[in-house]
């Protein structure tokens, strides 16, 4: 077998570079950088950073084209003009690459469905925190995702319980004190995000 040490050296990507790309993809898909441990009851710890720019992710992926990861970029459909991809397709393809970075085998549809759902729910909860959704608006937006969670991630039953328990306090005629309910809803969003992200990292490392 022909071996060219120069080419091989260029193709090897440093483990820390690979780690950085993985984290950048996570950050882009989840909308939240992996941060310090915080208490959901102490919002001083909760930072809501702006997710990375898509162009930064595109550049990071492009930089991998000359590395050992090139075959995985190809399998994920990322050997193309990235800026021309519609957002949904771009997210789908970097999700696939993220799976290859965790395990070089084909990701199962079951795994992809779990990750898609976690990313959607994470995006919604972060949007609710950033935009200051009313509890009622959040409850309504969460409805279809709760149904999907029950089907796609039944192992997250205790999270489903937490969602159902808290959302049952929210309503047009809720007897709860509205300021307290709004405050607790924010705490819960942070708690749910923490649990979703922990699950994401448990699946992908």
């Amino acid at each position, binding site marked *: 077998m022909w071996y060219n040490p120069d080419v091989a050296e260029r193709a090897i990507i440093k483990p820390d570079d690979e780690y950085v790309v993985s984290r950048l993809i996570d950050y882009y898909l989840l909308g939240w950088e992996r941060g310090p441990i915080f208490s959901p009851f102490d919002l001083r710890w909760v930072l809501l950073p702006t997710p990375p720019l898509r162009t930064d992710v595109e550049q990071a992926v492009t930089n991998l084209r000359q590395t050992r990861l090139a075959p995985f970029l190809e399998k994920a459909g990322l050997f193309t003009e990235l800026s021309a991809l519609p957002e949904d397709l771009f997210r789908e393809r970097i999700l696939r690459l993220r799976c290859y970075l965790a395990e070089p085998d084909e990701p199962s549809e079951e795994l992809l469905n779990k990750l898609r759902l976690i990313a959607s729910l994470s995006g919604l909860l972060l949007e609710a925190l950033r935009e200051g959704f009313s509890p009622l608006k959040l409850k309504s937006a969460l409805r279809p995702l709760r149904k999907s969670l029950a089907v796609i991630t039944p192992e997250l039953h205790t999270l489903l319980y937490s969602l*159902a328990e808290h959302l049952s306090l929210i309503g047009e005629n809720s007897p709860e004190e509205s300021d307290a309910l709004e405050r607790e809803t924010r705490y819960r969003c942070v708690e749910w995000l923490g649990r979703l992200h922990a699950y994401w990292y448990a699946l992908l490392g």
Partner: protein
Amino acid sequence: MNRPLKLHGWSEHAREEFADILGQSPSDQQMRALLRLWQKHSQEAFLNRHGRWQVKVVYKHKQQSHNLWLVAGEQNGNWLLWTIFEVA
């Protein structure tokens, strides 16, 4: 704090939550069925994190069956069915 053995009624919010679960507005008869379920299972009720009494019951109606958490809260000295939820 003594757990309520009987509930005096329900909040409008509880009715709305039940409607959400059933997919249609419940009749008074269906709401009273929940009060009876509370009475039947009240000994199993526990204090939840909000300081309200909570118990799990199975509600059956026609072909449907729901595992419901009933939550009771006190309002103006009366125990009411405060809210209801189902974990999908």
